[in-house]
């Protein structure tokens, strides 16, 4: 009971913060709200008995990545005009986006409310996890069952690094 109450509270905080990220005009405020979103997500992971993922979430997302975000925003040195943003003239897109988005939210909402979530229970119940240890289990899965996607992900990151270097390199290639 306490858990579901906590879940409801943290879930609504997460959603509220995520909405704030989108609606803030000032990019720094957006970034701060994004940190809050990440941290609330970490709390949700704890509620799901995934403490390791929660710790990683805080360290990597709320810590490392968001610091970089804020650095980039500072370095970009946005002027006031940029912050304000131009008034858009997308008359048709705005209302239709709002209507369609609303329909999507309602659709997903009904699904969530109607479905009795009896997903298939796996072998790793909270009891087994607390017996073996969360980190050990994540490590075991990564290096046994999911070793192939795990290794592939490294190439994904490598491709992304190469791409970032190419696009950000100062010097336009001569000759």
């Amino acid at each position, binding site marked *: 009971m306490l858990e579901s109450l906590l879940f409801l509270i943290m879930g609504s905080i997460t959603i509220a913060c995520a909405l704030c990220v989108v609606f803030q005009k000032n990019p720094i405020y957006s970034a701060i709200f994004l940190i809050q979103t990440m941290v609330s997500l970490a709390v949700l992971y704890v509620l799901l008995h995934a403490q390791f993922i929660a710790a990683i979430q805080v360290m990597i997302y709320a810590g490392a990545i968001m610091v970089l975000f804020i650095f980039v925003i500072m370095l970009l040195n946005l002027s006031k005009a940029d912050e304000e943003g131009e008034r858009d003239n997308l008359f048709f897109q705005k209302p239709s986006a709002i209507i369609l988005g609303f329909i999507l939210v309602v659709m*997903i909402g009904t699904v969530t409310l109607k479905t009795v979530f009896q*997903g*298939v229970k796996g072998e790793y119940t909270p009891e087994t996890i607390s017996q073996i240890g969360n980190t050990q289990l994540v490590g075991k899965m990564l290096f046994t069952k999911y070793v192939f996607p795990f290794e592939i992900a490294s190439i994904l990151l490598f491709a992304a690094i190469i791409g970032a270097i190419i696009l950000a390199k100062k010097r336009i290639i001569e000759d």
Partner: protein
Amino acid sequence: MEIVIPPFDLKSISPIIIITVFAIIILAIDVFFKKTLRDALGYFAILVVAVTGMVVGTQLGETVYSFSNMFVVDNFSVFFSLIFLVSTGIVILLSIRYTKQEGINNGEYYTLILFATMGMMLMAGGADLLTIFLGLEIMSISLYVLAGFRRDCVRSNEASLKYFLLGAFATCFLLYGIAMLYGATGTTNIKEIASFLANNPSLSNPMIVTATSLLVIGFGFKVACVPFHKWTPDVYEGAPTAITAFMSVGPKVAAFAAFARVFLVALPDVGQKWSVILWVLAALTMTVGNLVAIAQTNIKRMLAYSSIAHAGYALMAIIAGGDFGPASLIFYMLAYTFMNLGAFAVVIILGRKGEENANIEDYSGLGYKHPILAVSMCIFMFSLAGIPPFVGFIGKFYIFSAAIKNGFIILAIIGVVNCVIAVFYYLRVTVVMYMKKPVREFAPLSLSPFIIIALIITVWGTIHLGIFPGKIIALVQNSSLLY
């Protein structure tokens, strides 16, 4: 806790290892021998593609699941991998001179192309939604960068950014769909999902229905079907032409491979009931693609809309399903690879730095000035329009007959009507080339032995497969047995 390390079946993923390792070697060569070996990187990349192709070829006929059912080598994935490698090989042939001319001949260019190819092979061979997703991301990230490779060109930057933002957005839908499916079935493995759904009601579970619709959006974006096509023309126009050629073939084919595997294997039941939605998508894709293509004056934009229309035909093959659906999909994708890359080869040959001769009007009088080039362009246009004896006709015929056999007669009729509409804008290129006086002098052609080889391969593929399709069709039918 007992840990059992699963067997590492490296043989099954050897093509992927080879292509990745050599892509990294190309990067290293570019760093250490920039002065001396820079021009040789393209040749090296072709060699890598050829070697990988040979290794893939040896896998034909096997069915191997490896890495705890994360990856599968079957005829379906092998055949698709061969299509990817053919298209990548042709694109590299097209690139060797083009990149020099545009000043983008870095090693990273070839590395990213090879990485993208590797991502496509993962998508075709993914037996788990995780593998498919990672493959899709590797391919997409490489393409986002490749689209923006001409950094001094604003259009190229725009293309890259647009593709990246919309692509990331579409990826969210795909990922959400995968997560929902995982929540409903407790697994991401395609075979396990299929067996779960065979024993449990799938359509009454709203989670699975939502997951399916999200997956349709995610894949629909990657294959560029209407209404998820808005990015295509801008990205195709802004990207370097060789990359446009690559994007119009490889990623689309890969997305279709993954689409077919997920929908025909994991969700056959849902897929059947859902064919109504795919039906509407296919009809819209064909019609909108062809109608808007008529209005285009830029050849790259025209080919972009034509590729949207072709995605509609291919979608018809997935809807048809059954025995012939996947087979006709594979054959059509092979046909499309040859004819579309050929058309782009001609566009690249006629282009010059800064001035890409991208208006259709600029091709007027080509038939007198450069007859061979004009004839090959005609062949590609006729083939894309689906006129016999070229391969486009056989491909379309195969798809339409598969659709009719499985009872989608109205859809087939819409497809045929669309073919007639398409003839208009394909033939306009021919008319401009032969029946109009040149508006201005042609720039010297940007020819190289490699691009000529690419042109010969594509012309040969378009004609030969159109006249003697029997052997390939037998192979394709053999490859279409999913599981």
